[in-house]
């Protein structure tokens, strides 16, 4: 007569019964292994225990799984039904602003970054040339400083030829200058919209100071002795000129909307006219 048939789920449930069989089996197996470092007697003692455990475990499973009846918790002990929490959920709306929802809804196109880089590079080269002409009678000195970045790779140490025009050095400097201007312009175009507040401040002042500082710290590692050849005040001024010019050009470019602000229909790829800026 199966007493379980009388018990309804509300009164309790059957769960697997507790048993010491696994413990016996575990101790038995462990003793058998430990006999390797103790005494061969443990093989027999362990084997006996393991067998006892194995048989006991078998009988817990076959022919029917051994169960115990666990009565249901008293009503007072049960977890209460989960009730809806008063007050509504307030969804943060895209575009509402504030610190909690800052999404890049619009961004500057890459072309703006390239243009800004070129503009900044030209401005920088112009100022550098003028400064060099005014202070040292040669327009090239500061410009050639760029070559310092690549010269070590060619085994050329910085020296007096930096003061004047020297075709190889000028070419390396030009390549370095153009590549870096373009890359940093691209970085500006990507990053500036993400920064809070004033992009011109970030791009024009803060960023140049940061990478000048990093460069100052690391140049001794890359090319010992090069730090002395660089006029750091001029360097910072030129970086700021670049930053402000590039920042200005980029900020004035047309922004493009990101896909996030498009309705689902457009994002899903349907060809649809998107009108207006309603969010």
């Amino acid at each position: 007569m199966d007493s379980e048939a009388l018990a309804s789920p509300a009164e309790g449930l059957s769960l697997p019964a507790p048993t010491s069989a696994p413990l016996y089996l575990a101790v038995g197996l462990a003793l058998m292994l430990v006999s390797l470092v103790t005494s061969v007697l443990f093989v027999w003692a362990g084997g006996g225990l393991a067998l006892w455990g194995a048989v006991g475990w078998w009988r817990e499973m076959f022919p029917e799984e051994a169960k115990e009846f666990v009565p249901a918790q008293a009503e007072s002990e049960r977890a209460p039904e989960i009730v809806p929490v008063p007050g509504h959920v307030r969804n943060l709306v895209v575009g509402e602003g504030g610190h909690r929802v800052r999404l890049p809804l619009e961004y500057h196109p890459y072309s703006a970054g390239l243009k800004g880089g070129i503009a900044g590079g030209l401005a920088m080269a112009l100022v550098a040339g003028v400064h060099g002409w005014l202070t040292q009678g040669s327009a090239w000195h500061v410009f050639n400083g760029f070559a310092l970045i690549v010269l070590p790779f060619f085994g050329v140490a910085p020296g007096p030829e930096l003061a004047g025009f020297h075709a190889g050095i000028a070419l390396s400097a030009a390549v370095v200058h153009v590549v870096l201007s373009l890359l940093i312009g691209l970085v500006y175009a990507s990053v500036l919209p993400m920064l809070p507040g004033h992009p011109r401040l970030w791009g024009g002042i803060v960023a140049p100071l940061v990478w000048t500082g990093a460069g100052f710290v690391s140049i001794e590692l890359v090319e010992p002795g090069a730090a002395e050849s660089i006029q750091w005040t001029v360097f910072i001024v030129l970086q700021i000129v670049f930053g402000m010019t590039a920042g200005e050009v980029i900020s004035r470019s047309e922004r493009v909307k990101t896909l996030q602000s498009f309705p689902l229909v457009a994002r899903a790829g349907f060809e649809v006219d998107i009108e207006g800026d309603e969010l």
Partner: protein
Amino acid sequence: MSASTETRVPEAAKRTTAGWSQSLHDWVTTVDHKRLGILYIAAGFFFLVIGGVEAILMRAQLAVPANTLLEPQEFNRLFTMHGTTMVFLVGMPIITGFGNYLIPLMIGARDMAFPRLNAWGFWMFLLGGIVLYMSYFASMGLYGAGTAPDVGWFAYAPLAGKAFSRGNATDYWILGILISGFGSVSGAINMVTTTLTMRCPGMKMNRLPLFVWMMLVVSFLILLALPVLTGAQVMLLFDRFMGAHFFDTQAGGDAVLWQHFFWFFGHPEVYILMIPGFAYASEIIPVFSRKVIFGYSFMVAATIAIGLVAVGVWAHHMFTVGLGKGLSVWFAVMTMIVGIPTGIKLFNWIATLYGGKILLRTPMLFCIGFIGQFLVAGLSGILLSGAPLNWQLSDSYFVVAHFHYVLIGGLVFTIFGACYYWFPKMTGRMLSERLGRWHFWLFFVGFHLTFTTMHVQGVLGMPRRIYTYPAERGWEVWNAISSSGAILQALGVAVFLFALVQAFRRPQWAGPDPWNAWTLEWSTSSPPPAYNFLTIPEVRSRRPLWDLKHPDDPDWEHE
């Protein structure tokens, strides 16, 4: 122990009071996943204290140069036992314990798939630990009776072979881990089977709590890696007892083969240890940011990717054995690649925090500490993945600093967070928030004093596993700072243990859902009844309790 077709009313229900022997009997014969989970965690913390004492002794010895507190052989035994204990007897059981306790509750099941196998696994683990520590009393080492193994936690051949490890100390290392390894494997079989076959209605795989997903990946890694260790250890046993030549260099055997086998296990092992830490963080951070986890699918995909790639990076532990250019490049690149999915997860936790309403309760403090510390740990790992730099830093304190950053800064911090988070569910009492803060700050400061400075010692050239060092090397200051940090960490753990005791002496009762969380375990009473759920729940989203609490904006409309 006779089986019968009729159900038995438990003995305890027939008595008016349960004596201590009845309680002990209940705990020893239990097959309930919750009790076994608590047993695993409690045993793990017991071994944590022992392993911690071993660490304190080592730091005391290293605090000043040319110290004579410990003999060199004692020091060797200490670092061997400390490492072995922490990995196999603290890390493995605690993650198995939390997994055992929470997986059935989180998926709406009443127990694990194989409850008796579960019990067997726990006892095998515990007996393995006892066998390992028996070595202090029973083994006949080279130096006389009562010596623990002294070959390092990875027991490289040929040092671990019969010729160089005389006596039985190394055999105790082998047997202890062999026995407890069966516990881990049976736990993994249980976790996989339970997760795949016993989910409640509506709980599709993409509605599983991230905790359960991550334990699933961990279980596959266990099934892959632990038997490899078992095989290698059996080979070592054959070498030591039956005259086999697997790692016997004099007969043509290859000692590096042991390293390959060990680290093929060993690297997945550290992910087995760390991924559950990720699991705890993935549950705690959303609740205490009051936001859903950012990028659920990517978290799952990244975890699976980590599991897969982790199998292919083992020889980054072996860059200095002369692997050759091809292998060095492969392992360096693969190691760097494994940083990518890990980074994705880190970004997702940070994105979860961003814009959330941050509640700085104790579990959250530990998880925020985890985020920063794990970042540093991962970065120092990427530094080590470059083989040439690795040649300089291998076997130095830089490596020691790196893996302690991962295991303590990552795993132990999240384990403490998990303890504060789920202790109320397991016992019905809250842990004191005030003591929790003391615990966190003491442990945090101590951890950084010890292990942040340890990077410097490593770069300055201090090798690991040395029992002392001369004064002229310039390492004394850093070692002294590291040692002082150890004391603070010990105090932090002591505060934690005190908090545990206080929770029972002066209980602050917790309801079913003290943290206003969203997964199924919080719908049961604290502690849950033996059967977990009187009626099996049905779910429609990843946060079933959110749906019940906020029917005006249920999750299933957004998933």
